[in-house]
């Protein structure tokens, strides 16, 4: 039982990232009918918002302290970040909470990036063939990624979560199980909760506001909404910006889990596409659900038999089942790397429109 729970938890953080990116992809596809190959790059840009803010906050002033000497006989350099020198204690807190703070930076930045992208580039491609839409966003992804590489270098830049939200959380004890059975990095839980909040926010926005209602109407029948005298293009542009923000936020909060580097986006993009295909193209709920499902599926196939595992005689029924599962996995080494793609193949062959796809949408 605890093993199963642990694996579900393990799957949640990756699943959250998949779900957030896939949600953005689906939003863009549903509103504008464009598949955005640069969406992974937006995720990466979000992550690099954190990196930039962190760099900015930790910019140091160097003071030569004449009273103390280093081992080489030169005056010792005292390095303190400017923010600490200016704001004292508060500055230290600022530096520590750089990752959550970047959310505030990332929202306007990503909104701007998204809107610029739509107005400046993608707008001109609605009437062109699908292949060209894919190609131009693909080219944009390469360009964005290479700019980041030129600016920040090719190596991953580790970011750390605030101490208060870091460390391990004894999840088992919290829900009344034996202590120490399920320990889980606290930040991953934070990430999951954050993803939950963002997803709920987007859904509420679409469901309960007038703006969202118009957007949904536009998704169903763009022409009619336009004929009613509503400027649907403007709203769709905003939705593109919103999707960019969602991807960016997913990237911001993911930085402590995976150190961002320039090709981070593409790795996630391919998987998010699979998520969208499994969930059903154009279905927001499907994208989110498939994201979590595939994340959990992946973590279940990454399980390994622990070093201390009871012998056949002392096993409970649950442990017996687990044992069978471990044995299967031993015969399929590395299956966790490809399980998501295999799942996509099965879904495609059995239910071509995806788990929650509407009938007739992208079935051919």
């Amino acid at each position, binding site marked *: 039982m605890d093993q199963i729970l642990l694996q579900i938890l393990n799957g949640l953080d990756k699943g959250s990232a998949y779900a957030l990116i896939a949600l953005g992809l689906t939003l863009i596809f549903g509103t504008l009918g464009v598949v955005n190959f640069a969406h992974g790059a937006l995720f990466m840009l979000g992550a690099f918002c954190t990196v930039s803010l962190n760099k900015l906050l930790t910019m140091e002033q160097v003071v030569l302290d004449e009273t103390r000497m280093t081992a080489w006989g030169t005056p010792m350099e005292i390095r303190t970040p400017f923010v600490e020198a200016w704001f004292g204690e508060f500055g230290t807190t600022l530096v520590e909470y750089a990752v959550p703070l970047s959310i505030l930076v990332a929202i306007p930045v990503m909104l701007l990036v998204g809107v610029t992208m739509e107005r400046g580039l993608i707008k001109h491609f609605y009437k062109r063939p699908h292949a060209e839409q894919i190609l131009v966003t693909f080219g944009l992804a390469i360009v964005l990624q290479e700019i980041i590489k*030129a600016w920040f270098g090719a190596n991953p830049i580790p970011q750390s979560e605030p101490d208060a939200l870091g460390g391990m959380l004894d999840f088992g004890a919290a829900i009344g199980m034996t202590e120490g059975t399920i320990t889980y990095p606290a930040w991953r839980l934070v990430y999951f909760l954050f993803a939950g909040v963002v997803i709920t926010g987007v859904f509420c926005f679409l469901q309960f506001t007038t703006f969202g209602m118009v957007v949904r109407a536009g998704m169903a029948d763009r022409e009619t909404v336009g004929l009613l005298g509503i400027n649907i293009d403007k709203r769709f542009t905003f939705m593109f910006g919103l999707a960019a923000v969602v991807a960016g936020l997913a990237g911001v909060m993911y930085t402590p889990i995976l150190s961002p580097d320039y090709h981070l986006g593409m790795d996630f993009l391919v998987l998010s596409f699979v998520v969208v295909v499994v969930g059903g193209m154009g279905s927001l709920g499907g994208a989110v659900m498939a994201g979590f499902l595939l994340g959990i599926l992946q973590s279940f196939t990454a399980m390994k038999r622990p070093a201390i595992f009871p012998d056949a005689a002392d096993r409970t029924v649950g442990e017996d089942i687990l044992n069978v599962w471990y044995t299967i996995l031993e015969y399929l080494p590395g299956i966790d790397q490809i399980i998501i793609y295999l799942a996509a193949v099965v879904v*495609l062959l059995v239910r071509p429109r995806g788990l929650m796809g509407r009938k007739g949408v992208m079935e051919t």
Partner: protein
Amino acid sequence: MNAKASSRNDLYLILGFIVAVALGPIIMTPFGGYPDLLQKFAIFGIFAIGFNILFGLTGYLSFGHAAFLGAGSYAAVWCFKLVGMNVLPAIISAMIVGGLFSALIGFVSLRRSGIYFSILTLAFAQMCYNLAYSVLGQPGMNLTNGETGLQLKLDDPRYFGESASESGTIPPTSMFGIEMKQIHEFDLFGMTVQVSNGYFVCALFVILAFYVSMRIFRSPFGMMLRAVKTNQNRMSYTGLNTRPYALAAFVISGMYAGLAGGLMSAMDPLAGAERMQWTASGEVVLMTILGGAGTLIGPIIGAGVIKYLENIFSSFNDQVMTGFFDFLPDWLGSAMVWITSPFVGEGWHLTLGVIFMLIVIFLPGGLMEGFARIGRLFRGSRKRGEGAADAPRVPAE
């Protein structure tokens, strides 16, 4: 244009192509060509020709063709390991493996079209990459040797050849005794021209590949593929199942990719997973688009241009750029260096991305369309009125 004239044009085209390939080493020498680069032209030319058969004719945009190239090069290296150092069986097995992979992936991906198809091929290619990079590289089932890449070893069996040469090293790849890496030099017009044996093999295959692709373009089968691109629904309504045709095109282009991979291994007998990555798939798309999808020689021109620019741009560095802008005043020169340096050397991919976007935005028909436009411009200004009659012949395939 009657059938006779078009077949005569084709004859000229293929003859011209053969001459261009044969004279390639001589033409390229003043522009800094060397045997490896010429081989690359030919290999990526084959890759792009194959990709064009799928994308140019049927309009299915595959983002996973690098997987077939990678699979082909692994197959060829295994052939060197198990059979012997002759390149012919290696290349044939590479084609077969490329074809098998594409048949498998095509069977699943071709259930969908349009955007979906691109996404699926991208996903499967990434799956193949993961398989090659980690899953099949683990001890116990080590087919790909993971991160390091598959290499030849001295103790490989090579059942139909010698396992080690007389000097105790790994024997070089050869075709019935002719070594691929051996370089011939001769003087012509005061310059030293270098040609490797490998280039002749590549040249032979690129000519064959070009000829086959031309036959496909002109055949009823090619017509059927064009019809799939133009209006697939209509084809279905007339009671025709288009999927076998699309699958056939997919497998053929997969075999071309396998051939390119096999040749790559034949020239340099090692294979790595990075050949399968999505960037490699994107590159062949770019070559085809740049040259002109759906035209016969466009993809080869695209492949040549990209590989040539890559060779030039990645050899530049700040010092070279500083020398280049020497004639400018100091401040302007350093400003120019600052602007251009992200685009050269390590930053070659940035240039590639920018070219890619510019081409897609402004010249979706690629260089061939550009040439055609320029040609029309000239003809239009010289003898206006006859331009209209010439127009149908302008898309010079």
